[in-house]
């Protein structure tokens, strides 16, 4: 079991290996791939949110000089089977139809055809010559409307899983968790809070649009270069959509300009491969920002109802959650994890959780940082705030009173191993930002956050060069500084300095299988593989030293990067460093490499507590975040700066969602703000410095105690903002975003009451 220990490399803050090239612009991203004879692909997208596609005719476009190929749904096999891996989930068949519509276009921006032409401009011009005949259908755009009996159906064949006999419905699935007797619990409560909360559709907002280049060799095998969070998953998804085997596709990941879950799925790759197959040329496809907004992964808008009751002493007697999430055009809203997280920080006797995965005519939801948790926990953590007010208790004390601990059975089933929620709450209580009274007229809010984190499959190889340089080869695209963490864990395990270790993300054919970089799994699971591969190296180095010294391998120790005789082994030899052994490996048995592959278990849940002070301009409704404090359990912070970076980045994304981010649709289902001007992510000057405090409750399932840290940070800021704004106003606005027009309208309505 991992405990707090003294480390040499772990916990230091070296510069990340990819940092300088990114700052100077030398690093290659998705759109930077260029090949001889390369042509360009563009996608024609539905102008309707819901329409039957009667005919797609590319013949006029094909007549245009410089146009090489036009494809549509008919060019892809139907009946693809299987589930896709990664954080978002769903079936390959839905994925295939999302990438290229077949008989119906299900959202404004749904791909209906694609073209390859000599230049990107020609390809775009050719799109205008593709004739598509639509029968426009009324769209269903809101989760409440979609759930009503008799609502317009997004998919006439969709039935509710487990309740198929009830007939077609927009409700694809229902999730339920229950324990104890909630009704009896509410009857025993002194104070009960019951309220509805709505959270809008939000986009991950990665700066780099989706991009890929595909090229087929003479045997018909495809190579795909793309920006992705998981190239092994790109390979299997692309193969699934095209009806190919994974062995026919090689995927090479570029550097990635942000993903946040949105690059765990694919949109362009099968189209580029198909166009390359038809034209015999490499095909590059790059989305515009507008396409990114219209056609790629937002996360679900939601309608949540929470009821929670407590005794005067703060003991929660019962809680219920009703959570309806918009899946977009195909099933797969993250409502399952939303249900599982809603009460995760608490030890509850009586609860009921119901979740609904609901189709609407909007883009298919994709994973976004802790998928599903921000929506449901916004509701619960807002209700907790009101409950604390109701019984006149400090909101941290109320949470401490009901806090889950090691041994608590989580609402979603398992018994918690050591977790950090109590320590985070205790740290918040004594934090100077919390003990300092808020300024006159401002508001303060606090909330807890949670994410499961996942393990899954990873592989790593570690190789020694003859000068003692260590090469770590693994397959997890680096979206948050993970190569630096791999180097630190390798340096720690081997006992060598950080700067002799080089970490690389290999393509699908040069390293072993790794699941997607998602679920905050990389430092945990791929890190575990790297540590084990280093242990493999150490074992081999001990062998080589033993052979050199003519002793048994079990008479050799490995400390501080050197082989030394075990205490009591009486030989007169100099220690052999890793570099010494590497330098002579040609003579002692050949190249040295270590490897590991695993399916990691015990990822270790991540908890956080955040709080903020805000000012509300009562005349314009503008909310300013004055200060924000993020406290989170990282297990062990391998690279504290990058843990803090995750906490700060997640906080900013959560605050953006709370303040201004939302998809604005007109009545026809056309998104009106498909660009960064009107889809308002925060700019740097909107944010205060995000103060961070890392709590370390080591994860017993990892040799260095790592738990994932990437996703938890986005969860709490939504309710923190709602709670702080409510504190400033003296009444609650339960829906997000807290954009100036909504806040001012609420102030005016409140004054009229």
């Amino acid at each position, binding site marked *: 079991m991992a405990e707090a220990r003294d480390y040499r490399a772990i916990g230091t803050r070296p510069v990340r290996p990819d940092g300088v090239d990114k700052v100077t612009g030398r690093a290659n991203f998705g759109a930077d791939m260029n090949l001889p004879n390369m042509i360009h692909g563009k996608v024609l997208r539905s102008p309707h949110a819901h329409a039957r596609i009667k005919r797609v005719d590319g013949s006029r476009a094909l007549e245009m000089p410089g146009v090489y190929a036009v494809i549509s749904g008919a060019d892809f096999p139907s009946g693809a089977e299987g589930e896709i891996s990664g954080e978002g989930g769903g079936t390959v068949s839905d994925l295939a139809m999302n990438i290229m519509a077949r008989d119906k276009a299900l959202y404004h921006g749904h791909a209906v055809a694609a073209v390859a032409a000599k230049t990107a401009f020609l390809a775009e011009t050719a799109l205008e010559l593709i004739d598509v005949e639509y029968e426009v259908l009324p769209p269903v755009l809101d989760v409440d409307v979609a759930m009503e009996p008799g609502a317009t159906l997004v998919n006439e064949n969709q039935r509710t899983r487990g309740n198929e006999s009830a007939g077609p419905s927009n409700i694809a699935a229902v999730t339920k968790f229950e324990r104890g007797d909630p009704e009896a619990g509410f009857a025993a409560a002194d104070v009960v809070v019951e309220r509805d909360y709505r959270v809008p559709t939000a986009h991950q907002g990665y700066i780099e649009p989706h991009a890929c280049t595909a090229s087929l060799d003479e045997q018909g095998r495809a190579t795909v270069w793309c920006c992705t969070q998981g190239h092994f998953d790109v390979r299997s998804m692309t193969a699934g959509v095209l009806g190919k085997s994974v062995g026919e596709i090689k995927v090479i990941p570029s550097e990635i300009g942000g993903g946040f879950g949105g690059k765990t799925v694919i949109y362009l790759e099968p189209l580029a491969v198909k166009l390359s197959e038809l034209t015999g040329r490499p095909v590059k496809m790059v989305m515009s920002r507008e396409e990114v907004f219209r056609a790629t992964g937002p996360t679900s808008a939601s309608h949540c109802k929470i009821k929670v009751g407590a005794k005067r002493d703060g003991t929660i007697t019962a809680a219920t959650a009703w959570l309806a999430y918009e899946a977009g055009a195909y099933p797969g809203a993250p409502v399952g994890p939303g249900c599982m997280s809603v009460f995760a920080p608490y030890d509850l006797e009586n609860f009921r959780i119901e979740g609904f995965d609901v189709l609407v005519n909007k883009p298919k939801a994709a994973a976004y940082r802790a998928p599903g948790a921000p929506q449901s926990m916004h509701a619960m953590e807002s209700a907790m705030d009101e409950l604390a007010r109701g019984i006149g208790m400090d909101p941290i004390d109320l949470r401490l009173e009901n806090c889950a601990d090691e041994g608590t059975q989580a609402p979603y089933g398992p018994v918690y191993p050591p977790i950090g929620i109590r320590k985070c709450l205790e740290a918040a209580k004594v934090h100077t930002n919390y003990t300092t009274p808020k300024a006159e007229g401002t508001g303060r809010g606090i909330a807890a956050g949670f994410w499961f984190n996942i393990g899954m499959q990873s592989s790593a190889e570690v190789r020694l060069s003859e000068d003692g340089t260590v090469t770590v080869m693994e397959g997890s695209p680096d979206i948050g500084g993970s190569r630096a963490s791999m180097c630190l864990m390798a340096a720690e395990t081997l006992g060598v300095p950080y700067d002799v270790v080089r970490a690389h993300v290999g393509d699908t054919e040069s390293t072993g299988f790794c699941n997607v970089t998602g679920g905050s799994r990389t430092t945990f699971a791929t890190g575990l593989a790297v540590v084990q591969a280093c242990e493999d190296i150490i074992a081999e180095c001990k062998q080589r030293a033993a052979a050199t010294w003519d002793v048994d391998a079990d008479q050799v120790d490995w400390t501080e990067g050197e082989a030394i005789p075990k205490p009591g082994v009486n030989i007169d030899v100099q220690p052999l460093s890793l570099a010494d052994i590497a330098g002579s490996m040609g003579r002692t048995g050949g190249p040295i490499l270590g490897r590991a592959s695993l399916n990691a278990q015990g990822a270790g849940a991540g908890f956080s507590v955040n709080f903020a002070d805000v000012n509300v301009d009562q005349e314009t409704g503008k909310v300013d975040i004055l200060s924000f404090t993020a406290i989170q359990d990282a297990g062990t912070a391998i690279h504290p700066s990058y843990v803090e970076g995750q906490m700060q980045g997640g906080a900013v994304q959560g605050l953006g969602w709370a303040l201004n981010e939302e998809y604005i649709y007109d009545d026809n289902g056309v998104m009106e703000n498909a660009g960064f001007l009107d889809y308002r992510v925060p700019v740097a000057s909107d944010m205060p410095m995000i103060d961070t405090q890392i709590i370390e409750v080591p994860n017993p399932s990892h040799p260095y105690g790592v738990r994932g840290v990437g996703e938890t940070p986005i969860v709490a800021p939504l309710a923190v903002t709602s709670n702080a704004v409510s504190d400033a106003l003296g009444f609650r606005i339960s829906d997000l975003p807290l954009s100036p027009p909504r806040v*001012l309208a609420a102030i*005016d309505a409140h004054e009229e009451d």
Partner: protein
Amino acid sequence: MEAYAYARPTTLDEAVSLLAAHANEGRRTQLLAGGTDVLVQMRSVDREPRTLVDVKHIADTNRLDIDSDPVFIGSAIPSAILNENEELKSLFPGLIEAADLIGSTQIQGRATIGGNLCNSSPAGDTIPAIIAAGGVCVIAGSGGTRRVACEDFLTGVGTNVLEADELLVGLEFPRPKGRTADGYLRFIPRTEMDIAVAGAGVALSLDDGGTCTAARVAIGAVAPTALLVPAAADALIGTKVDDEALAAAGAACTAAASPISDKRGTIEYRNKVVAVLCRRAGANARDRALAR
């Protein structure tokens, strides 16, 4: 984007004859100042081929006369130059406040207030400030030079009085005298890099007793064009620009506004906020004038 031509005239005559010749031949020309609107529009909404006529290499458009009356600001001068000019800042704090709001440091290295005006967006930030400060457009064309008050320059969303053979040479401002000062405020949901939901510029003169003797109030983003609001000015003139007078001026702005509801704000919201901005900008202008 398709191929386009680029011309770089060095005199007003050359620029005007280029524009006139192209107009006669039915070819499309577009004037280019900082390009912070033009280049963005060429890549997205408006991708037709054209000839760009750059106004930045003409002596007259680069002229900046600060010590004269009227003050003259050439149409090629980027806002960064204006923002860093202490004398201009003290003469027209509100106008410079507006110029300093455009985009970001990088954008301001190129963006001009002339381009902001000629782009003629209802939300252009410097336009209400130019109107409030009494800006007059100096326009060169085949027929010679003409002058048009800024409030009469705009004709609609993205349109203005310029003919195909005309360009804006620069803006003239009456030199502020005595206790005269201006102020501009806009509302955006963020702190920068955004587009005004509403804006208000106020310029006023006070006598020695602090009573307002002259005022101009202009509003932006709440009608198809930025508007001069004489009723708001009337509400200030003869008062000490106290809360009551400012509230009346704000109400006059709301009455003059005819906003739309869109993704950036509702009619009700814009009507309310334009009044708030008028009050706050008016108070700033008053305090600055009192400090003179």
